């Protein structure tokens, strides 16, 4: 009965996700080897976040899970972001 509901991700799609992740990895290496000053950090972190999003959504099956799980993940991301912002308000303006 549960097999009816369960979504099976095809091997091909898993492989395509891997290719996307590898491309983004090599892109990060290429970007950070060029001198972009402070943009280096932003670009690397932006691509890393994108990769994490892809892993969460496809490999960790969030795409096919109940909506409550997705909401929980978003909450954790928001809590963590708030933590970063609060910490840096302290260090940047003390």
């Amino acid at each position, binding site marked *: 009965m549960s097999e009816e509901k369960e979504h099976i991700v095809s091997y091909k799609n898993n492989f395509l996700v*891997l290719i996307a992740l590898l491309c983004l990895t090599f892109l990060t290496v290429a970007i950070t080897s060029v001198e972009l000053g402070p943009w280096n950090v932003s670009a690397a972190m932006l691509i890393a976040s994108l990769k994490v999003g892809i892993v969460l959504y496809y490999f960790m099956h969030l795409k096919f899970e109940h909506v409550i799980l997705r909401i929980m993940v978003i909450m954790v991301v928001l809590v963590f972001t708030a933590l970063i912002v609060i910490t840096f308000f302290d260090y940047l303006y003390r």
Partner: protein
Amino acid sequence: MEQTATHSLEHRDDTASKLGMWLFIFTEILLFGGLFIVYSVYRYKYPVAFHLANQELDKTIGLINTVILLISSMTVAMSVSAIKEGKKKLTITLLGITLLLALIFLVNKYFEWGAKFHHGLYPGSGILHDLGHGDTLFFGLYFFMTGLHALHIIIGMTLLAVVLLKVKNERINSGDYVLLENGGLYWHLVDLIWIFLFPLFYLIH
């Protein structure tokens, strides 16, 4: 037939198991998240030292390990598809490949750390003491965070090895595979952490 009969009598709640696994993953994310914040703050306070210390790290070995982890994440994701389709042999092969890749990751880490130790770069070393606060903090965080991550790799390998054995004796099968899914989630978490560790320590300068 008997198998399915006993299974339906058993109390099982796969959704709750997965929810529990996700809650555990959240605690892990915040554990490493806290460390990332510590790293960012010290990077902000000691930009020059972090910039110079960063160049001591071997980009190539970091990149190889990133590729290894990404591939192993795919093989775990595929093993979940395989068990759902009832392909026992394929599931075992894919989990075996994952374990092998994890082992290669650790061997690389061994050589990487070994080279650092050889150059006198380890927590509490005299050379780091002479280099000053920034370098001490960079390498302290480097060893602690990649070490904690390696510990997670070892835990993940143990978990996946147990899952592999259970698939072998059919305790995990196409009708009951939540343990494989949860083991897979843990393995993806290990991958997620590395996705941030790699640019932060090896690439950004």
